[in-house]
């Protein structure tokens, strides 16, 4: 619905392409500083995982990029323009916990909301919008449930509906807040596929998550956040016991049945043989092996 001049710039303009640049970002709620001096530069085709403890500012960072929390200091720019003027090109998948699931909207209605910025004030969605919504609903496997009220869905299905809404927006930046929370295997697969195709289409993907293993499997870089950036860099360099301990403010137990080395193995050294038995600690996730493959290809 925002119609700034910057909004209409073609996305593929190489001159403008500075990616997503966060400079010295500080965000405070009332008197309390939630984020302090965050710097990051994210290029097209990068997938960034934001990890860190509760209250570490993961959601706040996403919301600052989205432009819905006041920025106390610093700036967020997308392709050289302040991100607040580029909102149509940033899509957001909220945490499932903050959505009012009793609201009288169907799956179709929610996904159509992703088209609203393209429709504009006082107008109704047209044939193009209908086509896009139908297409993304099929992509996330929610076409058959399109007439269902959103409260009737399972947790994974609910997550896919909001992912579909973000896809319908056809944005350049995709922000996902806790996308792996309480979902089923099918949804996990859908989200991974969508992140992967976003990467290949040259989009910028940021996902905030508690799920360290999913983050380490899916993301090119990790941003370890605890009010400030504790560590930011390629996953194989940041996903270490030392960094995680520094991020979470205490020792993180990484020892599994096979010893520390296997649980924090860098992406290029998948553990041989069948995946280990599912363990109770998130760091010892059986999905470790097979999700590394797309990453490996990417780096060849």
């Amino acid at each position, binding site marked *: 619905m925002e119609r700034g001049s910057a909004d209409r710039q073609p996305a593929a303009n190489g001159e403008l392409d500075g990616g997503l640049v966060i400079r010295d970002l500080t965000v405070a709620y009332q008197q309390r500083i939630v984020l302090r001096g965050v710097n990051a530069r994210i290029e097209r085709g990068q997938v960034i995982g934001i990890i860190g403890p509760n209250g570490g500012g993961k959601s706040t960072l996403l919301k600052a990029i989205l*432009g819905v929390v006041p920025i106390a200091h610093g700036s967020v720019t997308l392709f050289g323009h302040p991100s607040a003027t580029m909102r149509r090109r*940033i899509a957001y998948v909220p945490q499932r916990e903050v959505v*009012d699931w009793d609201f009288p909207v169907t799956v179709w209605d929610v996904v159509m*909301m992703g088209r*609203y910025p393209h429709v504009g*004030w006082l107008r109704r969605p047209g044939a193009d919008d209908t086509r896009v919504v139908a297409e993304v609903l099929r992509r996330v496997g929610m076409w058959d449930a399109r007439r269902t009220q959103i409260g009737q869905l399972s947790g994974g299905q609910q997550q896919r509906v909001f992912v579909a809404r973000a896809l319908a927006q056809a944005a350049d930046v995709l922000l996902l807040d806790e996308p792996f929370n309480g979902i089923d295997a099918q949804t996990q697969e859908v989200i991974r596929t969508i992140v992967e195709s976003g990467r290949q289409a040259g989009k910028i993907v940021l996902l905030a998550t508690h799920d360290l293993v999913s983050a380490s499997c899916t993301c090119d870089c990790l941003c370890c956040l605890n009010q400030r950036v504790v560590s930011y860099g390629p996953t194989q360099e940041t996903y270490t016991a030392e960094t995680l301990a520094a991020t979470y403010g205490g020792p993180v137990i990484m020892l599994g049945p096979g010893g520390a080395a296997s649980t924090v193995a860098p992406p290029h050294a998948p553990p041989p043989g069948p995946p280990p038995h599912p363990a109770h600690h998130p760091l010892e996730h059986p999905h470790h092996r097979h999700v590394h493959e797309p990453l490996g290809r990417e780096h060849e």
Partner: protein
Amino acid sequence: MMDAVAHWIADPFAHAFMQRALVEVVLMGAVTGAIGTYVVLRGLSFIGDALSHAIFPGVVIAFLLGRSVFVGALAFGLLTSASIVVLTTTRRVKEDSAIGVLFAGSFALGVVLISTTRNYSRDLAAFLFGNILGVTPTDIALSAGVAGLVLLLVVLLYKELLLVAFDRDAAQAMGVPVFWMNLLLLAMISLTIVVSLSAVGNILVVAMLITPAATARLLTDRLPTMLALSAGLGAMSGVVGLLLSFHANVAAGGTIVLVATGMFGAVWLLSPRHGLIASRLARRRLMAAPSPTGLEPVRPHPSDGR
């Protein structure tokens, strides 16, 4: 028999004052029902109640000056809304306290002001409980204009109102001016309350904002349907209540609200989807059905009791 029913319905409208009342209650019912949908979905019942009291001095001042009550009501509605926002910026005062302080104080100001008139108790009663049979053609024209404006905005701003109500962050992120949309919604609620003053009065208007919409919510899972149903139920309560009050010779405003309440009760019991009886039956079927594995009956999860 049919003849008697037809007479029962048609005869009262031989009177010109009943014709005017009919138009007024239909307008009032439709517009409160439509805007009430957003009051219910956004949990604004308390704000709706507060606004109806807060606009009271505006109405009284306009009445005393012989000016349009719409302008007075709207001014006080917006003033109160803005004051609530300002008061709550100092964190010592919680929002519900701020609303409580303002609406009670505002209402008291209205009572004091109206006590300066000679026909104190009659005027007060008309504002508080409505005076549908005394509606003038000018009142109807104003109500029609305001109701038309509010309904037009509900239709034109459908996308934006929906987005702000359902997902505030997404609305803001997509560039919808959330603050102004909220203020606009409060202004629309204020206008709607003024339209309803003559039919149900200041005290009972909150029922018309909530009850038809809450009833409609039990009948549908889609917003456009809920808006239409709620407007229809509001208008229907108005007409049925008006007729009943005429024949029983009781207060129209109260009867209209009682009809709306009765409809809610009936739907709550009988609604095919969300009604008490339907969900009990569904639960019983679920308990009785063999489980997919054929080993034990499926027990509904405790949270499925909605």
